[in-house]
């Protein structure tokens, strides 16, 4: 039996079907989760996909954090269940305080869609074990509110604890502090990043690379190995 990975759909979520596909490509079972439903359907891990949940009104992720499904996700994440937040999902995770910091509008004020080079800074998370620490990958980036910020003390702490999970290479596309593209919580089960690994899992589509597949194979090994 393979791992069951839940993919949450909020109103305005866009990349839920892509994320389900990425989960399947990696060999796991994708389980759709609905924002109004507290029931996580016994999934082993949850992905919060990208999009504009609730239209990003008020502030990206600000309304979604109060949805019924998030009550269960927060509870389970604190108990150790792996959770990955991609783009809007990362914004939701910061709004829930499962991850520190916040995302502001890109420093150039435009939406940007590009093939982005990243360095995987740590492979000691549930979602990055299949990468080498220091490995460089390229996956699509697409957002308008992608500038990661936190106070200096938090940034120093993240660095000191090895919790900066991904850093932008070559170009910092949005003015994120310390080139941070993604971070993890202390336990390594909750990871959030702005770029989109689910758009880089098949050689044929998107950028033509499969650099994002490692996120999904990592979690699969993590979960199946744990049984």
């Amino acid at each position: 039996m393979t791992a069951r990975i839940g993919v949450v759909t909020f109103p305005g979520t866009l990349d839920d079907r892509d994320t389900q596909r990425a989960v399947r490509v990696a060999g796991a079972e994708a389980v759709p989760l609905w924002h109004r439903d507290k029931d996580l359907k016994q999934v082993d891990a949850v992905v919060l996909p990208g999009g504009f949940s609730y239209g990003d009104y008020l502030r990206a992720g600000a309304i979604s954090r109060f949805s019924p499904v998030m009550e269960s996700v927060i509870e389970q994440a604190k108990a150790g269940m792996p959770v990955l937040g991609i783009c809007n999902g990362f914004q939701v995770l910061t709004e829930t305080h499962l991850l520190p910091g916040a995302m502001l509008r890109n420093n150039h004020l435009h939406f940007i869609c590009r093939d982005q080079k990243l360095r995987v800074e740590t492979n000691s998370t549930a979602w990055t074990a299949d990468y080498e620490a220091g490995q460089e990958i390229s996956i699509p980036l697409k957002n308008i509110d992608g500038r990661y910020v936190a106070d200096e003390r938090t940034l120093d702490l993240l660095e000191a604890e090895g919790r900066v999970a991904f850093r932008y290479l070559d170009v910092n596309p949005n003015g994120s502090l310390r080139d941070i593209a993604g971070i993890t919580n202390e336990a390594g089960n909750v990871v959030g990043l702005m770029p989109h690994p689910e758009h880089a899992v098949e050689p044929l589509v998107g950028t033509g690379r499969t650099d994002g597949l490692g996120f999904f194979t990592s979690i699969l090994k993590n979960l199946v190995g744990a049984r």
Partner: protein
Amino acid sequence: MTLDTVKHAEQTPEAGQPWADLGLKPDEYERIREILGRRPTGAELAMYSVMWSEHCSYKSSKVHLKQFGEKVPENDAMLVGIGENAGVVDVGQGYAVTFKVESHNHPSYIEPYQGAATGVGGIVRDILAMGARPVAVVDPLRFGAADHPDTKRVLPGVVAGIGGYGNCLGLPNIGGEVVFDPCYQGNPLVNAGCIGVMKHEDIHLAKASGTGNKVILYGARTGGDGIGGVSVLASETFESTGPAKRPAVQVGDPFQEKLLIECTLEIFREKLVAGIQDLGGAGLSCATSELASAGSGGMRVDLDTVPLRDSSLSPEEILMSESQERMCAVVEPDKVDRFMEICEKWDVIATVIGEVTEGERLEIFWHGEQIVDVPPRTVAHEGPVYHRPYERPSWQDALQADDANKLARPADATELKEQILKLVASPNQASKAWITDQYDRFVQGNTILAQPEDAGMVRVDEESNLGVAMATDGNGRYAKLDPYAGAQLALAESYRNVAASGAKPLAISNCLNFGSPEDPDVMWQFAEATRGLADGCLQLGTPVTGGNVSLYNQTGETAIHPTPVVAVLGVIDDVTRRTPIAFKEEGQLLYLLGETRAEFGGSAWSQVVHDHLGGLPPKVDLERERLLAEILISASRDGMIDAAHDLSDGGLVQAVVESCLRGNTGARLVVPDGLDAFTFLLSESAGRAVVSVPRSEELRFTDMCGARGLPVTRIGVVDGTAVEVQGQFTLSLDELRAAHAETIPGLFA
């Protein structure tokens, strides 16, 4: 305040009505009175005026558009033709594809962000209404001079609007164009196209049938936006004194539209609708009259049940409102509960506003009193038809006599190099990445090719790798020189682009952007362009599935260049065989397909170097285009070519530079015998493409071209880090990249 009911209209036959302010002509108003046998009520007048407008009734263009339905090529792929929300073609494996291009030109000039955003929203709803999941969008755009101050206002707003709306819908933006020309200064062209995919059995049509079926309005509440001219009606009929003028440009909410898409697709999956129509131009007036006139019975609507954003709206305003993100469905009574449940799931407001009735009238009530009683066909389909006078402009001969071949050519290789560098950096030829990077091209995870490729391509089926491709093209400069040929060149280029990507062209949609139909010069351009396009489609075997006409694109007496934009849809059985434009493999051979003549009329070179527009556009040879397309498709399918790029504005050198920069490789070119370097590099002869051929395939490829009679010339090899034309000049990739990439951000970032 008196409500202008049908009864009241009967009792007050001589009451004055603001028909002229609503844009109706005296004879049009008389005809309405004749149809109804009395004066129209205010609400009826509102409906007729907006539905008989140029935008909704095609009254000036209809007599010419007829050709698209008459000169129909043999084509088994056509499932739904002109007249529905969008045409539908069969792409095999049980899949059907619907696609269309529309304009949102005037609103985008007034309010660039919202104008462009709601343009995307409107075309997406058209596609959705056919029963399809929207899978991609494209945006052909035209602006005034790149360095004009107003272009700095319009372009960033339009681009942000397209991105802001389209990105929130989760639709990859895979293609389109950005063109600058001073002729569009006061009339930017913001066209938007959308592709949708469904199974054959899921095709839905806009018709209301089945007496007793419910009419459900769902989506956003109705507000006072997009009403424009009708406010005069409210103020004149109802003696109101305050400033009743409402915004003429609609305001979009992409979040609402995303919910509407998912909600509607779920409704389709459960087969809950008998007929469906999106609300776009003319809002409820259009949706109710079109649904009713396409169905078998009549329709009764209780207008006071429509959910409002602004409770002070008059019935006339509600009928005319162009509030976005609304749909109208006809649902059998026993399916209404489930319909409502799905809407509730998606937080979409849905209201039963009426029902299908026996008889043949569209009847609308306001708190129980009847304000509309009309035969719906007379509103929706039997509007006025004009045979506008047209005549070849007096200046056309002089324009064509001003031959571009008389322009001074570069004196030596150094000047040729300088001119090419200038061309590559010119706003029309420069990289548009700064613009297209503001659009999401990856969402949905099916994007095979996106800009700057020749055509956008998306995968339709993950198991079989079936895919569809689309390209949009239109060259207003060519069309100005010869509208008949210009329209065919737009068709040919779009067709060629689709074929260059490896897909087989199936059918077309068009967006015909012209000046005022009341000007016989413009009307001649329109007549010639439609004739050219219809003849061209017949010859290439690609039927017109639908389209859009945008007239009155002019400032004062000056019209834009006639700009027919053609979107060609193609199908590819296996997307792994698609052909990108990038030259990647060093050592591969470069072949030029087709014939190069000294053709510079309307060319990019004549514009950039000489600011000249005159002479004749490149010669059209559609049989050659068809042969070229067949060769490109076969070569792609059989693995004989690794890259292909069509040749169009900027000629060979522009194509080679783009392919080199895309693949980050250089190329060494040799000027073929019988051609001078200038003509070889910069001529815009049609029916050509450049391909990159693996050495192992060279013989097979050239044999195939030879056997089929397509001229093929070996022009060089993929090699190095520069574009080198032997005996002429060398331009390093770095130099070319800087020239190509920096122009647009330099102007707009």
